[in-house]
């Protein structure tokens, strides 16, 4: 289809269009019936994400562009987009728990979540600086509102405000960096930046540095992570879970595309990225040690995990991208699993945010405790779980990336050792015998077990027989 000289390939845009229609349908349903049940609205959202995913299937392994080359489906887009759609579905499920915070307006909540995902999909597919910026802004603006949707809680309002203020600053860096890069390459296309990168012109380097600041902010890489703990702690659980997975997936798609398209093997200009990775791994792991709030702990852990994932890009190696996607998918499942447990224990509210609430959980609710233990094992990288193979692949990338890569590998090992203490602190609480009165526990609906069960299965399958998935990822590249 061509409109005014711009060609549109609907097959490539179909996932995004499906979500756009879904979002509008949700708004419409909300508008037509002021008392539309939450189940209906979230059901539309879930169905929409299923349709979007179905439209993505034929794109697997394809490499094509549309809108005159400004948007692509390719090895950089597909895996990350799949994680985004998955994140949307899981977040909707988590939001449907009885006590979940949705700001009293499930219609706009669900629609914003869907628009947020659309922003992520645009980021993953955009091949130009403008497209990337559009995607990031769409994602961020919706998320600023969602962070505050735990409205009556002050922490949630605080989270939203901090996120807006610091997020806007980061956007400023991003747009300024993009402008300088345009100046360096005389084009907004990422591919056109390669010659400027090879020449290492000052304009390019400054632009790249500013762009990297913006990206590091979105990824919560240290030292641009200061907003993370407060925002993650204050936002409703489902939104925190969405942030840790979806925002990372979308932003890593941008970073990977940028790094692989613009830089050659072992480019010196990747030095800042190296530094960000090491700092994040160490700051995230050490920061997690002292936390008493599980959401905060997982926030610091997500800083460290983002640092781990940057290791995949060290040296721009041949297998970096597949390692990154493998780890991201593993991370998505283990992180969602952990958040799903926190959410279902309190049936959506914040009762189980405090680590002390997990005391002797194993003896009260053995299956829940066992599942959370598995997710924490996976986050810690214990063998037999997805996290272990993910870390193994990253470690290989690091060690294969020359002496600087070896330093990354060493930092990864150190970070892992330290963060193990943080994760096992929760496990310790769950298995230590009860002291004093045990809190009353209630069961959960079958629906709330769905994300948990899916994550358990995924973490175990990726941890015991990773081969088929590695093949799946590599075949698409």
């Amino acid at each position: 289809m061509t409109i005014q000289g711009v060609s549109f390939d609907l097959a490539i845009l179909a996932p995004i269009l499906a979500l756009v229609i879904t979002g509008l349908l949700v708004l419409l349903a909300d508008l037509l019936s002021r008392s539309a049940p939450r189940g209906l609205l979230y059901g539309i959202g879930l169905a929409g994400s299923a349709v979007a995913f179905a439209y993505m299937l034929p794109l697997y392994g394809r490499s094509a562009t549309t809108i005159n080359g400004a948007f692509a489906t390719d090895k950089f887009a597909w895996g990350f987009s799949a994680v985004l759609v998955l994140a949307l579905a899981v977040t909707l499920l988590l939001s449907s728990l009885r006590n979940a915070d949705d700001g009293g307006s499930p219609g706009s909540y669900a629609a914003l979540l869907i628009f947020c995902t659309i922003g992520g999909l645009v980021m993953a597919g955009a091949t130009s600086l403008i497209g990337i910026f559009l995607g990031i802004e769409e994602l961020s603006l919706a998320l600023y509102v969602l962070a505050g949707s735990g409205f009556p809680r002050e922490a949630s309002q605080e989270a939203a405000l901090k996120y807006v203020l610091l997020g806007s600053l980061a956007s400023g860096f991003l747009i300024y960096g993009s402008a300088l890069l345009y100046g360096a390459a005389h084009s907004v296309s990422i591919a056109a930046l390669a010659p400027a990168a090879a020449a290492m012109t000052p304009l390019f380097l400054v632009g790249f540095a500013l762009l990297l600041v913006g990206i590091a902010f979105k990824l919560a890489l240290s030292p641009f992570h200061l907003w993370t703990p407060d925002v993650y702690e204050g936002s409703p659980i489902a939104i925190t879970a969405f942030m840790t997975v979806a925002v990372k997936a979308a932003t890593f798609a941008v970073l990977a595309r940028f790094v692989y398209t613009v830089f050659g093997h072992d480019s010196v200009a990747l030095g800042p990225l190296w530094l960000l990775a090491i700092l994040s791994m160490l700051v995230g792991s050490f920061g997690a040690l002292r936390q008493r709030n599980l959401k905060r702990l997982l926030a610091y852990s997500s800083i460290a995990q983002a640092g781990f994932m940057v290791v995949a890009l060290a040296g721009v190696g041949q297998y970096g991208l597949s390692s990154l996607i493998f780890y991201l998918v593993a991370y998505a499942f283990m992180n969602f699993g952990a958040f799903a447990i926190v959410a279902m224990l309190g049936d959506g509210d914040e009762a189980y945010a405090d680590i002390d609430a997990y005391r002797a959980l194993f003896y009260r609710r053995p299956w829940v405790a066992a599942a959370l233990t598995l997710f924490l094992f996976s986050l810690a990288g214990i063998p037999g779980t997805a996290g272990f193979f993910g870390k193994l692949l990253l470690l290989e990338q690091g060690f294969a990336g020359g002496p600087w890569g070896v330093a990354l590998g060493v930092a990864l090992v150190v970070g892992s050792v330290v963060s193990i203490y943080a994760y096992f602190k929760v496990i310790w609480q769950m298995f230590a015998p009860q002291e004093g009165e045990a809190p009353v526990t209630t069961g959960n609906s079958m629906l709330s077990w769905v994300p948990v069960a899916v994550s358990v299965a995924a973490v175990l399958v990726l941890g015991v027989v990773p081969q088929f998935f590695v093949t799946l990822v590599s075949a698409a590249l």
Partner: protein
Amino acid sequence: MISVMVFLPLLFALVLLLVPRSNGPVLKAVAFVGAPLTFIMSLSFLHVAPGGIAQDSLRWIGGEVAAAYHVRVDGISLFFVLLTTFVSVPAVWAAFSYADAARLRGYLVLLLLFEWTLLGLFTAGDLLLFYIYWDLMLLPVFLVLVGFAGSPEARRAAWIYLLYNLAGGLVLLAGVVGVVLQSHTFEVLGQSYTLAPVLQRWLFAAFALAFLIKTPAFPFHAWMPATYTQSPTSLVAMVSGVQSKAGLYGLIVFAMPLFPEAAHFFAPTLLVLAVCSILYGALAAIVQNNAKTLIGYSSLSHLGFVLLALFAFNFSSVPASVLMIVSHGVIVAALFLLVGFIEERVGTNDLGAFGGLAAGAPRLAVFMLIVSMAALGLPGLSGFAGEFLILIGAWQTQPVFTSFALIAVVLAAVYVLRLFQSAIHGPLRVPAQSRVGQIIGIQALDGKDSMFDLAPREFWLVVPLLAVIFFLGIWPAWLNDRIPSNANGAAQAAVNEHV
């Protein structure tokens, strides 16, 4: 077949989970079938020694870096497997008197899981599989210490244990990745790689650090006293009897064959650490007042002998080490079980708080005597055979280090006799609150001299261990001749080249 044996404890652990928690007799019956059945299955591999090998391999991960699900039992790993399955039987059986009947199921499940990971480790023919079990085996121990040992000190000890060993594990992982980047496969056993000497040294150092932490050897033993002292009886019998051999197994089967030159380069360092372990362990054991801590330090000392043998590079290095490893595993497991029985009776491990148990428990006293004598190396018992072979062998290549190690033989007599005498001999004294204290409070000791002696279960579960102690003491050649003379390819090649 090997996989069936390895996963049998896991299977029984899962079956246990299906039994209601309150159904004590059925739980015990399942566990009582599971552990001995695994032992009987492991006996079916006796035919591989000497020189043979039984193995199964399945393609697991392909592509750039290959890994296989490869399990094997050869002349060396056979004895580690047998030790595991054999020690697990009394350990699981001893757990039946676990104090909190409502939580017995969880405890038994974790013990069986522990046995599974140990078996997996000793049969792993692939570096990746080896590493996976290496880390997994920490988890049952951690969970038992947190949830089933019952004291705040134990819950603290869980941390020390976990962090120390996981740190070692991740260093090992870095080493493994370093090897794999050269070999492009995790299946490195039986292959020879010519790695650059400098790289070899780094990789060997990574492997050895993890292995020495696990053993433990001086100065990496900081986790050991707390873990050994706080673990419940069955667990500590398995940790000291079997898990402490995992590091030595790794050295013999992986580190030394993979990095022969680096092994020689680091030999002086490791010999120094070995002698330090031997002497420090013995001296520290002498001053301990807690029976379990004392045995823990004695274990540090005894395993130092194995390190001495391995890095003295002589003709009997590997056979003597394996003999010592098996013998020490059985002896230390028996010691910890007996001390556990004493603890159940008198409520404490503090040597100052009780004594003279021979007055009311003659069979316990006799068993304790036999095991103590084996621990101090009395000829005719297994402890002597291993130590003697090691000292003879090591003397020929490393007389200086060996003469230092000899001092520990005398020191061993001091701490073992102190343990035995203060617990068993002398006038009977026990804390009034303990089980024995209450029995004595009600009726006087006259005439009935076996009022709190070993129950039939306790009696029979120690007997097989004693039988092996006698058997290996009288006929060590049974084991020694089964270790192939060219055991373990490169390790022995390195030895021969050195001699």
